[in-house]
């Protein structure tokens, strides 16, 4: 089975800190995605990447950036964390478009 691993399950950061969320997949998938999950809002796409060094904005990219230097790793960066970025962050990868997404277990980020 494809495995998508998010490096941290829980994180607590201070306002203004630069935060890195890491995601690694082990099945050579081209596509990788970052979503945030908030109660009542479902999952919203922040950024996605369809190849190394390629990235595209999702629906809510403001306050975030991403990096994909290697095919297996997709990092989400909060340049200056704010309290409204407190959320659950989910990484996913896929081989054939949306036909087969695999999600990581999520990182619950709290910004204080």
């Amino acid at each position: 089975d494809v495995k998508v691993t998010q490096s941290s399950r829980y994180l607590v950061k201070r306002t203004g800190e630069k935060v890195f969320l890491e995601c690694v997949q082990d099945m050579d998938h081209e596509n990788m995605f970052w979503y945030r999950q908030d109660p009542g809002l479902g999952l919203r796409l922040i950024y996605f990447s369809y190849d190394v060094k390629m990235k595209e904005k999702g629906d809510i990219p403001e306050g975030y950036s991403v990096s994909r230097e290697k095919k297996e790793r997709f990092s989400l960066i909060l340049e200056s964390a704010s309290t409204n970025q407190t959320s659950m962050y989910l990484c996913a990868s896929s081989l054939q478009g949306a036909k087969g997404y695999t999600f990581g277990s999520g990182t619950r980020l709290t910004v204080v």
Partner: protein
Amino acid sequence: AQSVTQLDSQVPVFEEAPVELRCNYSSSVSVYLFWYVQYPNQGLQLLLKYLSGSTLVESINGFEAEFNKSQTSFHLRKPSVHISDTAEYFCAVSGANAGGTSYGKLTFGQGTILTVHP
């Protein structure tokens, strides 16, 4: 642009009762449709999907969903629920055309929390 509306934020039911979780979508292109499930403190797991062919799709644990193109719906049903079905369920849509701007991106609904009571 695509959008998904899950019509119920919470659905409480008793064990062994039937349940329907409603999902409507809008899209200007052909779509793939999905239901994902999230158990407490876990990530999302694919429950079932419609890509093409038969409009009725089933999961291994007794759920089914029917793609209704005329009503732009993909409602999830189970004839008899168990306590273990308690979870949050997400409906999602993706464009079906390779190379289109929506290809590969999933748009999710707001989620429906299913709570099964003994």
